[in-house]
């Protein structure tokens, strides 16, 4: 049934300044097929998709579509071919109605050229029904849940005569029930001969919905497999190219062994993000906060760090009650936080590495409010070397470095503060595999120095790989706890999504 190749991307290469993001990658999608695309962060999935979507231009390689060689120069051209990409961060205008979003740029017109709102609503209602949504097309997108928005993106793609729908981590913010609906829609698409490229980390979903899987690693194609003839473990091994333990290092077994907790959180709430969160953190352990995006993990961290207002609850540090009203007060008490989005919340892009690294240590590198250049340089040089950053790079603008090096600057910033509790929110997002393993090593070293490390991660393999203990959050609550050596993918996922496996 899948004999006709609809899309064939062959020998696609793309380099960004100094980084070979893709090297001769092939992606072949047949008509009516669900092709899963997997790989670690930095493996090249998003670059490949951007090229397909016309958002980036490949350095070399060919794309043929329905048997003809084509060139895709803009997102508009991609869309004209029937290639529809649904990005993880949805592209909806939240202040407009559902109907307006679905028909943006191609609104039905009346005879005198005005927008025909009546017709638009009718057509929108049909499109919405098709994806199983039961809402009014006049509803403002603002009022919809993330899942509903996702379905609207799909409705939009379908109403535009899609031939290939690309879904980038579509279930990352969906509940199980919503995932079911999504899968039904995908099955429907298949029946109509529409192909789907399905990007996901979740083996369970891939093995349920996909026909084949394309595995990328470090910008290269590893293999293409039929899901029927391969196991999830094998796919994971293809993705990381080695056993998990090599990448993440040795786990600590100290956790919970008659240690006093360094931090106790009791009934902490910050509506609407999370409520009644209680847990303990022990010195020298790596505690992972796991859960789906939007489950309240980052917000919990931000609240502990004083960047979000606490509405209820108590926190004690070494037995002393502690209420951070601002990050400044949290830092004084020995907490560090590496934020989720390093570009928006972490780095000063135009400023040099040195300034970036000592930004939380201004007191330590100054006397009477006057900065000491010698202290600044010696502090930064010490931690650059510790982080494996080249020391001659400390006077380079942070924005010119690679993702991995940028993350090392931020880690260095907090190491320089010698925190008792270090919270790392997505420490390896958008970082290549080599830098990743260095960062894991670093995290283990930090915890070996008896620092309590709290890691927030959406990367399940990372969670399983580094955690001494895992807390799972769902919809703003802690729903479970697993010891690192007893955790499995399905155990954690079951709690994170709230379904038995």
């Amino acid at each position, binding site marked *: 049934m899948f004999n006709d190749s609809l899309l064939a991307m062959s020998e696609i290469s793309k380099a*960004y*300044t100094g980084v070979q993001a893709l090297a001769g990658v092939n992606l072949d999608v047949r008509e009516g097929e669900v092709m899963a695309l997997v790989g670690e962060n930095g493996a090249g999935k998003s670059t490949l998709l951007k090229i397909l979507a016309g958002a980036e231009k490949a350095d070399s390689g060919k794309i043929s579509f329905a048997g003809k060689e084509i060139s895709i120069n803009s997102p508009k051209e991609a869309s004209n071919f029937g290639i529809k990409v649904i990005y993880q961060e949805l592209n909806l205008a939240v202040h407009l109605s559902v109907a307006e979003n679905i028909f943006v740029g191609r609104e039905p017109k009346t005879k005198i050229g005005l927008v025909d709102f009546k017709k638009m609503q009718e057509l929108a209602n049909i499109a919405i029904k098709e994806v199983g949504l039961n809402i009014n097309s006049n509803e403002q997108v603002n009022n919809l849940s993330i899942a509903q928005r996702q379905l609207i993106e799909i409705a939009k793609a379908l109403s535009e005569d899609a031939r290939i729908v690309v879904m980038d981590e579509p279930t990352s913010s969906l509940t199980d029930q919503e995932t079911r609906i999504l899968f039904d829609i995908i099955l429907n698409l298949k029946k109509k001969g529409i192909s789907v490229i399905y990007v996901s980390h979740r083996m369970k979903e891939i093995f349920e919905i996909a026909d084949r899987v394309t595995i990328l690693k470090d910008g290269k194609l590893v293999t293409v497999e039929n899901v029927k003839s391969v196991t999830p473990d094998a796919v994971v091994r293809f993705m990381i190219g080695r056993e998990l333990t090599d990448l993440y290092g040795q786990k600590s077994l100290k956790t919970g062994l008659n240690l006093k907790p360094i931090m106790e959180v009791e009934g902490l709430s910050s509506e609407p993000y999370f409520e009644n969160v209680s847990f303990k953190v022990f010195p020298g352990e790596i505690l992972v906060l796991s859960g789906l995006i939007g489950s309240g993990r980052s917000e919990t961290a931000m609240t502990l*760090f004083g*960047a979000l207002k606490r509405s209820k609850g108590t926190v004690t540090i070494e037995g002393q009650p502690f209420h951070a009203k*601002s*990050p*400044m007060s*949290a*830092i*004084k008490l020995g907490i560090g*936080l590496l*934020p989720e989005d390093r*570009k*928006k*919340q*972490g*780095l*000063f*892009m*135009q*400023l040099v590495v040195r*300034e970036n690294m000592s*930004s*939380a240590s*201004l*007191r330590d590198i*100054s006397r009477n*409010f*006057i*900065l000491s250049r010698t202290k600044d340089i010696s502090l930064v040089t010490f931690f650059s070397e510790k982080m494996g950053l080249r020391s001659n790079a400390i006077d380079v*603008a942070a*924005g*010119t*470095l690679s993702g991995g090096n940028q993350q090392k600057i931020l880690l260095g*910033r907090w190491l320089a503060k010698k925190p008792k509790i270090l919270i790392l929110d997505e420490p390896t997002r958008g970082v290549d595999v080599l830098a990743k393993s260095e960062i894991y090593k670093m995290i283990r070293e930090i915890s070996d120095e008896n620092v309590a490390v709290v890691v927030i991660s959406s990367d399940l393999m990372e969670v399983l790989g580094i955690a001494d203990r895992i807390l799972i959050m769902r919809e703003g609550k802690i729903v479970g706890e697993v010891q690192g050596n007893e955790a499995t993918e399905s155990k954690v996922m079951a709690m994170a999504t709230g379904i038995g496996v």
Partner: protein
Amino acid sequence: MNIKSVTAKKIFQTRELPLIVVVAGVIAALTFLSPYFFTSGNFEILARQTGLALLISVGMTFVILTAGIDLSVGSVVALSSVIVGEFIINFHWNPALSVFVSLIGALLVGYINGLFTTYLKLPAFVSTLGMLAIARGLALGVTGGSTIEGFSEGFLYWGQGKFLGLPVPACIALVVAVLSIFVLRKTVFGRQVFFIGSNESAALLSGIPVRKVKIATFMIASFLAGLSGVLETSRLGVSQPSAGNGYELVAIGACVIGGVSLFGGVGSVLGTILGTVLLLLIQDGLILLNISPYWQQVFSGAIIVISVSINLRTGKIKIKN
């Protein structure tokens, strides 16, 4: 690579270099075009004017470096001028004390600007636009729109006199500029200003007291505008509620010409000094060349646009993504 060539390279890579060349070029051109330009009399006028303007643009630099803006500085010039006149002439206060009151008034205006932008989270553009009208209105209301005259010689010295052969306002501006360079480059506060302008959330998450620092920059801008207003009152021998009209545009212009980014985090006082000098040179030159003052703004506007586009091309920092 030896040390010598590194320093040489550094000088040629200086962001301000193109501007230095332009300023030198304008000086050369004006010397050639007007026999009156390269005279001590003209330089004295130029130095006095530049000093007054520089105080305001240096203050503006602090605010813009945090990605803010202060549109109220021109009105603060008027307000401080009027306060000083009222207290000295109408209330017969001691001049030094009157100047003190006037500067406290300016600081207060800056503090309110800061409160509105940080705690009420108004965009600086809006809060200081409001203050532009309020401060100007206060100056006009208090005086009923009329001017105040009759200052003593002692007070007039600060605007009209000389110190070590240099006009006093130029001396003061020079001291302020040097101090500002030191503060921005060598102090914790200066570093924090750049952090906030470069990335406010990152600054907050680094434990920097963002609100306090921002309020301080507004107070610096207002204080220096007030100081300039007092000195201008002394220079002209009259306090007037219409003083300082449009000065905010000169100050902002000087900053952007000097390479201070309106998005914050990038710029230097040295750039601002050059920008101010360039704008005032052009003004001075046009007067000497007998070109109607009505045309001056056309030139100033053109200079701003041209130099910023040059800056964008030469001084641009390349950032991934």
